[in-house]
């Protein structure tokens, strides 16, 4: 697979559709219609749950308790106000905390995974194959498996109620490494690295300024995944954090959930929390997905 790039790139061709087969015009039309039908179907399927979440965030606790409805009600701002009230914890603070952790996590994950993949792909060193196989192997270990030992470790190092145990492990993300490796094999010709050396670039600079930009679509993809994964993670933060001012949004949601069957219970507030918690990830996604789309043009330029 590594040799893929050794194929000679032909002279630049402006527009592929110029080569479109005339006979295929009708079948293309059918394909296009079928595609749209399929896309609309998928869209409805995806948006339905969002629609329900949004509707639910406009309904009061009583309305939510009394069953299902497809029509919005007028309690959006009331729920919003309740969600934004400072109790033990404060939602804007939680959003900020989640943002800090998710941003740090996703940046570390993609940067160090790309770096590791680059190190193993570009350099020929003893134990290189072993290192690659090792990461593949450990990728298969479920996170829950090491959770107990991890908590003991955190306690030993007195890292409870800090963000380090949430952020630092992101440096070693086997699955992201695996993806980067697969991608680099297809997208990074070794000649580029050698050319940079000839120009006198040091190895780190080559990686940072030449290699990383070529990996943009992959970086963006993995960054989204890492960001969302961290943003929605309840498991690890709940093990590490107990101070209100450090809590992330999923922990807050879980506390509101344990309030449900008490006097302080409010389903409307719960759905509002869920709704608000989705907004930042949607924004991050929209922002990063631009890079993925841009990746197309990048891809053709680099050829």
């Amino acid at each position, binding site marked *: 697979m590594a040799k893929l790039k050794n194929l000679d790139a032909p002279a630049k061709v402006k527009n592929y559709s110029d080569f479109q087969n005339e006979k295929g015009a009708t079948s293309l039309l059918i394909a296009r219609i079928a595609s749209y039908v399929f896309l609309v179907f998928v869209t409805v399927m995806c948006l339905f749950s969002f629609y329900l979440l949004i509707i639910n965030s406009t309904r*009061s606790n009583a309305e939510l308790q009394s*069953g299902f409805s497809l029509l919005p009600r007028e309690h959006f701002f009331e729920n919003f106000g309740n969600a934004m009230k400072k109790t033990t914890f404060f939602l804007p603070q939680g959003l900020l905390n989640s943002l800090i952790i998710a941003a740090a996590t996703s940046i570390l994950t993609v940067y160090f995974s790309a770096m590791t993949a680059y190190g193993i792909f570009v350099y020929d060193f003893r134990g290189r194959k072993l290192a690659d196989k090792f990461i593949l192997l450990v990728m298969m270990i479920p996170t829950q498996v090491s959770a107990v030992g991890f908590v003991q470790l955190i*306690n030993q190092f007195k890292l409870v109620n800090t963000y380090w145990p949430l952020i630092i492990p992101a440096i070693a993300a086997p699955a992201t490494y695996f993806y980067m490796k697969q991608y680099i094999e297809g997208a990074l010709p070794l000649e580029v690295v050698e050319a940079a050396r000839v120009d006198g670039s040091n190895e780190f600079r080559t990686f940072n300024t030449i290699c990383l930009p070529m990996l943009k679509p992959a970086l963006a993809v993995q960054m989204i995944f890492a960001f969302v994964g961290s943003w929605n993670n309840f498991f690890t933060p709940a093990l590490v954090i107990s101070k*209100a001012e450090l809590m992330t949004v999923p922990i807050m949601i879980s*506390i509101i959930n*344990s309030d449900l069957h008490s*006097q302080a219970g409010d389903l409307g507030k719960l759905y509002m929390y869920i709704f608000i918690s989705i907004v930042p990830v949607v924004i991050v996604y929209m922002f990063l997905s631009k890079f993925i789309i841009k990746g197309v043009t990048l891809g053709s330029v680099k050829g």
Partner: protein
Amino acid sequence: MKKRILAAVLATASILGTVAGCDSTNTSSTAPTESKDNNSSTTEESKPEDGGETKEEGKVLNIYAWNEEFKGFFEKYYQGLEWEVELEDGTKEKKKFDKAPGLETLKGVTVNWIINPSDGGVYQQKLDAALQAQSGAAADDKVDFFLAEADYILKYTNSDFTMDVSTIGVTTADTQYNYTVQAASDADGKVKGVSFQCCPSALIYRRSIAKDVLGTDDPAEVQKKLGTWADFDAVAAQAKEKGYYMTASYVETFRTFSNNVSSAWVVNGELNIDKAIEDWTTQAATYLDKEYTLPDGVWGDQKNAQMFAEGKTMCFFGPAWYYNFCMGNAMDKEKGCYGDWAVTTGPQEHFWGGTWILAATGTDNPTIVADIMKAFTVNEDVCSALIENEAQFTNNSKVNEKYATDPKFGNAFLGGQNDVALFVELAKGIKFEHKTNYDQLLSEKYPEYMLDYFQKKITKDEALANFYKFVNDTYADVKTP
């Protein structure tokens, strides 16, 4: 739902406003004279901050809890913070409880709530970790008190992490209900904390359906016809004939049985299924088979839907907090049946829920902790406020009885019935016996695993086997057949 409750609470409060105003002149029943610590703290207030020559109290009060319910009561009635109520017409009004004891005792003290979700056992894990680190923790980081529920309270009372509250000057008042004291006591009878509420659970029935089935909706008459399980079963059959369900969840009666067991869930390290639990199993199997009830959980949607006016269910079981805060569907303006309800004893006395305040060994604020415990049990102003503003049934029989005998006191949701009067009687008959550390999960999971058998998916033995597997996987030290 919230608005309706508020309206109801405020309505009763306004009726009572004058009564309470008169009564609250005798405020002397608070703490100050009971112990040395308290005396020093009362003298301390006249001095500047650093005057404590005998025992310096910590400046940070650390409280562990799993939700915000008690925090709300604490802030309003102990700390004396201002809060807002929404009136029937939608306007808001600021309120403040001027007699809050904390206005004095909490001067210069920071109250620090450490709230963790109960989901996945996170609360207990965090609390346990904090308690285990207590001896080495800095004074301001020490747990001062924490909250616990009846289902796992033994775990803490029987440990050294909680302390005998008599050592900090809290003695058990005879106005406290016996079962709440039993629950907070360790195996040797040392009391480790107090409950700020009492949760006797009643039979809650639909008046209109009772009239149709039994020919009466009067609580005393209904009680005569539903006073034993045999009667209850017979009425279930009558109800079915008329097209009604007796209960809306097959687990509905479980607590009534499990509160009245004669042996514990675990005896000598072995899982034990008590006769009462067996009886429930038989009853639930019959009820589902004959469609006297629905195959839904206690918190299920299907059950909740039965609370609407169009619902066909006659009986629910629950304490005051249940119908005041969890029967939103019955209170719904369009589809509900507000006022069509009443409460009575039912076949057996039992309780459901309740939250206990336990003193953590090593607290650096013993005086404040003691004062808080007293505030929520013997302070009549606080207890009255809890009844009037929060629809609580308090752990102070004197205050409760005051409302029980008040002819003007009534709950509009229950068609004007004075429910406090019933609970005062019920609370006397509740037992807290044959409890173990394992009760919470065992009582929750047993009915769930038996459902497969009730629904005839598998045999009873297979269902039991699945339950045993759960027990084995969760509790390594419990043996199963």
